[in-house]
């Protein structure tokens, strides 16, 4: 075999492996933090990270950022995606990493129970609210087209579903009636994108009359000039987004400082400016967020562990069964 071909082939392989070495090592001096987050707060981190780097703790810290659907990001980290700080849409996505041994089991034993930001589930409508949507009941009216992401790939969708379900219970309905509501709701759903971000894209592309989404998404989108309004239903769920430090390596001190910064008044002010409800008190600008009279949390519905099992199990979950029953009756 011609020696030259062998040499070329080996050097190509070696070159590729060399690239690997460059990629996985931390690079030169200075601390480097890998942030892996869900897709919605991407624009907030664009402000947060430079603000943190300007503080004494943040000096000399560089960041790499990765954004994507919450569940997908969480799974990637469990599968080996390097991360130092994670910020996901809902707590189970952090619990997955605890199970994988990447996050400490005591991650949520702090003043804010592990949460970084709050929000509420809202209904986004077209400017002028042509279909006069004021709450959950309007979403199941005939002819109303609803958008929500796919609950099996998107954390945001699970918040939406539980917000709708919990609101029915708050109004005094029985669980069976609340489930019937969910069936009626999914009957009106016309598109299920893989993430909350994509759902918003679809809505802005002209599809649907109402989009169930986070309040912070609606606020940031209005700021960008989108022709939308949003309705905060009387009864809705408090969306709590967790943050955690990953691993115990050399970067965990910087990681902890970054998290502490984001939980400090300075950091929380930046979050509030972008439409996220702060998790600490006394943050300027927090007053602009109205409190819905019927606000409830996921804990009042049993917590995510119970809810996931009951509603989102791939074969036995309530939502699975609803989607199947709709599919069987509407598939041609």
């Amino acid at each position, binding site marked *: 075999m011609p020696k030259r071909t062998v040499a070329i082939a080996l050097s190509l392989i070696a070159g590729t492996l060399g690239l690997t070495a460059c990629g996985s090592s931390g690079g030169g001096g200075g601390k480097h933090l890998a942030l892996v987050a869900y897709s919605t707060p991407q624009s907030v981190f664009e402000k947060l990270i430079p603000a943190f780097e300007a503080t004494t703790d943040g000096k000399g810290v560089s960041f790499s950022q990765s954004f994507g*659907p919450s569940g997908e990001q969480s799974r990637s980290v469990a599968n080996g995606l390097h991360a130092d700080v994670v910020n996901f849409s809902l707590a189970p996505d952090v619990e997955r990493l605890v199970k994988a041994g990447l996050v400490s089991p005591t991650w949520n034993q702090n003043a804010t129970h592990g949460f970084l930001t709050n929000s509420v589930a809202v209904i986004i409508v077209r400017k002028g609210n042509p279909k006069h949507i004021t709450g959950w009941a309007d979403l199941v009216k005939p002819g109303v087209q609803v958008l929500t992401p796919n609950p*099996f790939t998107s954390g945001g969708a699970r918040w939406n579903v539980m917000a709708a379900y919990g609101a029915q219970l708050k109004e005094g309905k029985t669980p069976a009636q609340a489930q019937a509501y969910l069936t009626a709701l999914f009957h009106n*759903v016309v598109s299920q994108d893989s993430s909350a971000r994509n759902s918003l894209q679809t809505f802005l*592309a002209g*599809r649907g009359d109402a989009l169930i989404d986070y309040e912070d998404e609606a606020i940031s989108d209005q700021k960008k000039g989108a022709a939308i309004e949003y309705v905060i239903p009387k009864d809705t769920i408090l969306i709590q987004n967790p943050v955690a430090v990953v691993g115990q390596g050399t970067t965990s001190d910087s990681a902890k400082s970054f998290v502490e910064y984001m939980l400090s008044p300075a950091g929380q002010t930046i979050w509030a400016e972008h439409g996220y409800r702060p998790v600490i008190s006394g943050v300027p600008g927090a007053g602009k967020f109205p409190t819905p009279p019927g606000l409830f949390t996921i804990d009042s519905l049993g917590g995510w562990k119970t809810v996931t099992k009951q509603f989102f199990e791939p074969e036995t979950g309530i939502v699975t069964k609803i989607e199947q029953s709709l599919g069987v009756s509407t598939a041609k």
Partner: protein
Amino acid sequence: MAAGRRAGFGGLRLTARGGSLLGKGLLGIYLTVLVLLPIAALLAKSSTGGLDAFWREVSNPEAVAAIKLTLIASVIVVAINAVFGTVIAWVLVRDEFPGKGIVNALIDLPFALPTIVAGVVLLALYGKDSPLGIDVAFTRAAVGLALLFVTLPFVVRSVQPVLLELDLAMEEAAASLGASPLTVLRRIVLPTLAPAIISGVALSFARAVGEFGSLVLITGNLPFKTEAGSVYIFGQIQNENLAAAAAVSVVLLLAALLVLALLTLFLRRRSQHVL
């Protein structure tokens, strides 16, 4: 033909000489790393839990709907391609008009264009802000549209070379003997083009069954309505249901391979009946 001649060639002679073994070894390693191992892992994953689990994953109603949508859409799309691809090839070979060279060059664009760009563009042209007033976004028609776009070149490029080789004398002889143009088409041209059309159809089908990037943007991915097989697989991966994802992948792969194999067989048998 090659009987009696030494098998093999040059550095890759297949006698057990040291150098050639190293060459084959390297090729083997490359193929293993890139194809064999991943396929084996896929098959293994899809059959964890045995045949029962495999069947259960595959007969899941949403999976069935997604597979059905993909297969039916692909069949319709390749049928359309067979007709229009041949017509386009005919026009490119037998006709003359200004700009033909440019049109011919652009035929390959869907093949070379990234699928995400295809999705964005189709959405712009046939979605809400469509300048043509055609809005099919988020419907099953969108699935068909995206697939038609990405499979455009295959039948065209398969038929063109054959059309070029086609001897006009036969067609003219038939015409002079009184055959109508339709008869000439049916009895002489189409049978000769059939193998090429079928080749193009096979490639189109393989591509359509696996298409993902353009569908994700334009179809809305509604389970049971507009969720294609590859999108369902993607969803299962995100849901950490790797066994289900692998199982459905294997089904789609088998479908594509089956079509390819059947068509190859058909072609081989046809070539044994050459005039």
